[in-house]
């Protein structure tokens, strides 16, 4: 493809002439540019917090006799977090400071120089990019203990992968280390994809990082776009051998396999073959060495499959609404792989879209199954387990259309976060909160982030801590890693 052809084709994406009028009409019902429409969120949350304090007990409510429903208490911390700027570390090693937010959330602010990364095992490491090899090389490691950054030196190993599939050879090397019993992989020689005279190839390390026997799941890719095909191998860190993980399962007979969704225990996978209308999914059982069409197994067609846990598949169907333009509807079934039983857990519920005038419907958390959020037209919020329809209601809380949730590694907590959409593009997240499904609590606080900072990563560090990575817009190298313990 020539650059001129690329640009010429995109020149064809021209908005319809009536779009300008349509937007102008929508603007006409909005206040003028100088009049900011939104009320301060703090006022709404203060009211919600006051109401929440009046809620003495978390009482079970049977909104639907088939559901086991409960109510969460919601508490909004009155004091906003004053987030420090990412200033780097003058000492050359991470500098740690900290405090408490409203006496309820412990915050640690780690200032760093250069490009740093972190693992979900309380390990921070500084990296350097080698432009010659394309490798990101780890230089220094630290762990945070008692408010200090303590240098550590995990043993870095280098392993070579030599794999052959269907006449194609895949040769790469990568670096890795063990920390807290877990294998962390660092880099692969050259880029993850490369092109030979014959075809484009790629190697990805997909899973197996927790396996004590040290076997990693590899995805070998050939081709690109609709000609992209995958195969899966198991790589032994001790012997350096790559064995065919699908051998004898019947997967060899499938045409055009390009994706696999694996269960955490790597015992099963949903293999996707074909494109568009010819797309078909198959369930792979590694131990039984069988491949079964998902449609034959479940009786459902036109569904996307995701593992809720090692023994449960969630099957989603997305459909355009019959009533005309609008959000797609979502129907979901839970399929018990051991019992072979199927149960519908969502029935044509509109998909939540913040573009709606009054956003409502179901908000799916990507592949972070099994929970979804159900928001009604007034912003009332419930959390539902898609495997069994168990529902938790959050009282006195209005879901922010710019909000979202991330499930903790253990699956018992949800991180609630609200992106800033009010015109401060450098402020990434203006509110954080944690829903503890076991304790029945929901704690949230507002954040005030300096203008000169931008935030790039938000994730669970473990089941009790959340991490945010921040960096300076004035000096791209200065970074901060901020930890929150709820």
């Amino acid at each position, binding site marked *: 493809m020539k650059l001129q*052809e690329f640009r010429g084709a995109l020149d*064809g994406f*021209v908005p319809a002439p009536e779009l300008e009028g349509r937007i102008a009409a929508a603007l006409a019902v909005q206040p003028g540019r100088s009049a900011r429409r939104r009320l301060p969120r703090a006022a709404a949350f203060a009211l919600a917090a006051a109401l929440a304090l009046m809620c003495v007990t978390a009482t079970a409510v049977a909104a639907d006799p088939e559901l086991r429903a409960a109510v969460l208490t919601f508490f909004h911390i009155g004091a906003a977090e004053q987030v420090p700027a990412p200033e780097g570390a003058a000492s050359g090693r991470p500098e740690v400071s900290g405090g408490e937010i409203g006496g309820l959330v412990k915050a640690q602010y780690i200032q760093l120089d250069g490009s740093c990364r972190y693992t979900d095992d309380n390990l921070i490491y500084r990296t350097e990019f080698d432009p010659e090899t394309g490798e990101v090389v780890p230089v220094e490691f630290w762990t945070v203990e008692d408010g200090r950054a303590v240098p550590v030196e995990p043993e870095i190993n280098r392993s070579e992968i030599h794999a052959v599939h269907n006449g194609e050879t895949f040769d790469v090397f990568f670096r890795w280390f063990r920390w807290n019993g877990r294998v962390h992989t660092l880099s692969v020689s050259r880029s993850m994809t490369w092109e030979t005279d014959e075809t*484009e190839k790629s190697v990805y390390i997909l899973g197996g990082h927790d396996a004590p026997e040290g076997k990693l799941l590899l995805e070998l890719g050939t081709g690109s*776009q609709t000609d992209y095909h995958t195969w899966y191998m198991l790589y032994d860190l001790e012997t350096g051998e790559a064995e065919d993980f699908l051998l004898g399962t019947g997967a060899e007979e499938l045409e055009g396999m390009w994706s696999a969704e694996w269960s955490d225990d790597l015992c099963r996978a949903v293999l996707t073959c074909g494109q*568009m209308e010819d797309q078909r999914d198959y369930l792979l059982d590694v131990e039984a060495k069988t491949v079964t069409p998902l449609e034959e197994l479940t009786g459902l067609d036109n569904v996307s499959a995701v593992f809720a846990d090692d023994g449960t598949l969630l099957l989603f169907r997305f459909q355009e609404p019959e009533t005309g333009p609008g959000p797609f509807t979502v129907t979901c079934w839970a399929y018990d792989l051991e019992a072979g039983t199927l149960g519908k857990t969502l029935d044509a519920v509109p998909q939540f*879209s913040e*573009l709606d005038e009054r956003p409502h419907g179901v908000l799916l958390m*990507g592949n972070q199954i099994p929970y979804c959020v159900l928001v009604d037209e007034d912003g009332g919020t419930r959390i539902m387990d898609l495997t069994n329809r168990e529902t938790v209601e959050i009282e006195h809380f209005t879901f922010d259309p710019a909000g979202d949730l991330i499930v903790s590694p253990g699956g018992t907590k949800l991180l609630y976060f609200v992106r800033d959409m009010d015109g401060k593009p450098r402020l990434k997240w203006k509110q954080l909160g944690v829903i503890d499904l076991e304790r029945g609590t929901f704690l949230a606080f507002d954040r005030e982030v300096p203008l000169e900072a931008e935030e790039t990563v938000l994730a669970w560090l473990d089941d009790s801590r959340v991490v945010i990575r921040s960096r300076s817009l004035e000096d791209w190298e200065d970074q901060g890693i901020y930890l929150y313990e709820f």
Partner: protein
Amino acid sequence: MTDTDRWFEAAYRAYGPSVYRLSMVYLGRRADAEDVTQEAFLRLLRGGPDFPNGEHERRWLLRVAANLCRDQLRGPWRRRVTALEEDCPMPDPETFGVADAVVRLPEKYKGPIYLHYYEGYSVEETAEILHLGVSAVKMRLKRGREKLKLELEGTI
């Protein structure tokens, strides 16, 4: 004509086509791209900061549009291939094929490829607009280019 009308007319004519085009690259459907374009301008009206100049305003709109598009692509259905809708008007099948190939790119390559190779933003500017690191943008441009087999003679 009110001040708001005048402001919108100027802003839309200056940035509307770029916002719409970026949305088409991400989503491949005109109706979805129009929705995103509308929402981006509504957000500009009700919450946009005071920009020092038009270029800042343009970059803000592109960032908001990219985020809205990513939100639409989120979910278990995301791994399905996004394709250009079949009745999208194009001058000839070859041009349609080129545009379709861009829309079929994995989501993470679309923003960098569009902003750098179509809009002409530098790697650093692209990184700032998309809230990505410079090295990440370079890598995505490289891989996106590989996937498109994009030849760079006459490049900016």
